């Protein structure tokens, strides 16, 4: 649990402690994530728009949606396969309520009406998924949420009046405000980065707030939680609602970044990919889903070219992706986070007795 913040009330309670000491300790404790943050902020200075939006931007969005799964699975012990669907509901609603290339369906409401409404509808859907599955555990939660995901996929595929069936929607532009066209690569990248960082910090913060701690109590022992005064079902449903909020924002960013949404954005394979992303990154800390997402995006983008470059059939790129994930999970059941923790633990042990 080295990466997870502890409550640490003791240092805060010492009045004589210097501020500088506290700050430097905070910085050193969080140095990996702070360095990562600085790198992401200065990235547009060195990277082209392909790297910004198609690699890092996409990974940040997928990371956000996987983060909502990590919040439920890691803190709540509830593996929900409906999180990609929640994102898809938000994305579809953005296309239906806002702007698209289909005047017959889209309502062309301004983004500041359409986006909040789309998020509200997606959160309602996510909460509904929670209400359905909150009384179940383990494999049954997975089955119910998978059924919801499959149902939504087929609904979008077969419904033409609202979802435009097989074709879905195209030309769903990001808004213009503050005099900035958020469709441009650099503004879009910063918007994605802002919401990804916000949701990361929010999950990290809430994990140590009463709501998040109680959720971890529900994960470890729901029966005991009842016996110390918690309404376990209500807590689980509230967790689904919070996770749905993150997934919904991710879903809207996804349609703005892709400029389209179709049934294949919410297909079963995508739903499973999201689970793989979260598990490979690691579900014991909110950074895990983002790590899993960047690995997935890099493999997804370059596996084909890499295969061709070594003279193999490029169409086998899925095999390469699968092998990559298999190797990670084989070596570390708790994902890349687990590798990182073992690595830092070894470094600290090698550092000798002067360390903590």
């Amino acid at each position: 649990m080295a990466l997870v913040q502890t409550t640490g009330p003791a240092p805060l309670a010492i009045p004589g402690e210097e501020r500088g000491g506290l700050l430097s300790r905070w910085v050193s404790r969080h140095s990996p994530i702070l360095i990562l943050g600085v790198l992401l902020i200065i990235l547009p200075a060195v990277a082209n728009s392909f790297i910004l939006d198609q690699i890092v931007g996409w990974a940040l969005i997928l990371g956000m949606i996987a983060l909502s799964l990590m919040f439920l699975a890691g803190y709540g012990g509830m593996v929900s396969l409906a999180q990609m669907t929640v994102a898809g509901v938000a994305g579809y609603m953005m296309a239906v309520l806002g702007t698209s290339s289909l005047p017959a369906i889209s309502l062309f409401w301004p983004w500041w009406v359409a986006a909040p409404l789309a998020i509200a509808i997606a959160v309602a859907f996510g909460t509904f998924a929670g209400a359905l599955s909150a009384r179940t555990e383990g494999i049954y939660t997975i089955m119910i949420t998978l059924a919801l995901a499959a149902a939504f996929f087929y609904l979008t595929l077969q419904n033409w009046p609202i979802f435009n069936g097989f074709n879905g929607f195209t030309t769903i532009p990001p808004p213009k405000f503050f005099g900035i066209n958020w469709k441009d690569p650099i503004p879009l990248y910063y918007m994605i980065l802002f919401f990804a960082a916000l949701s990361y910090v929010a999950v990290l913060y809430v994990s140590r707030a009463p709501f998040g701690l109680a959720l971890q109590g529900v994960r470890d022992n729901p029966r005991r939680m009842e016996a110390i005064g918690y309404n376990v079902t209500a807590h689980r449903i509230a967790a689904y609602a919070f996770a749905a909020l993150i997934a919904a924002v991710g879903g809207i960013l996804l349609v703005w970044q892709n400029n389209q949404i179709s049934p294949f954005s919410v297909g079963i394979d995508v739903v499973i990919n999201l689970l793989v992303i979260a598990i490979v990154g690691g579900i014991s800390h909110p950074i895990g889903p983002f790590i899993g997402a960047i690995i997935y995006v890099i493999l997804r983008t370059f596996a084909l070219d890499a295969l061709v470059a070594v003279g193999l059939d490029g169409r086998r790129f899925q095999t390469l992706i699968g092998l990559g994930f298999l190797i990670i999970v084989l070596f570390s059941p708790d994902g890349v986070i687990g590798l990182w923790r073992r690595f830092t633990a070894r470094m600290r042990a090698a550092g000798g007795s002067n360390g903590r």
Partner: protein
Amino acid sequence: MSTIAERIAAAGTGNAIELRGVSRYFGALAALTDITLSVRPGERRAVLGSNGAGKTTLLNCVTGDFPPTSGTVRFFGEDVTTLPPHERIRRGLRRTYQISLLFQRLSVRDNVYLACRGVSRGRFSFIRTRASDAIMQSVHDLIALVHLERVTDRLVGELAHGQQRQLEIALALAGAPRFILFDEPAAGLSPNERGDLVAILTALPAHIGYIIIEHDMDVALRVVENVTMMHNGRIFKEGAPHEIEADPEVQQLYLGGGHA
């Protein structure tokens, strides 16, 4: 509205625990048969009996871990038969478990914090609790009470068995309990820790009553005023500790072997 008024009026007037005709079946197996039992506020009562006598099932029916098949359960006069466990806990009922049910991947402090938060407001709060918050003081007081100060930041899964039993007791003392159910709290404790347990039980404020299930007579009979003997899901004897100890039927059941 009238039901709330009735509940308030009834609260505190009746017995702390009152069971009427409580039965519990597991399929065809009768774990409890027609139990009628009342315990006064502040009363300390031991429930004794051999394995399978229905003692833990009795506690589960009182807390609502599972509901009785038939009969009513009243807590300080209020009918709580159909209330979920967390509602009963918020009304001042507490319990410990025979096999520790703790939050293994959280620290000792977080475990006790959750118990304190569970019987107060802000269970759904998204705002972190500050170290200066009053609730943290009660968390540390409870940890000190069960001598776990030195392992406050350790994960519960790493604790020794005896320490987990101590923590189990701390969780049951959070907030302002009115009545506590202890399910074999001394199981697996060292003689020293048993001494601590007896000290904690006898030092509880007089208005807090409890029911204790305990096989260790040295613990059980030292900390209670009354004893209820159970056998095969029924109550078959009630009395003061010395009466129970001297009772020939009890001696036969506990020492003489053959069952009725």
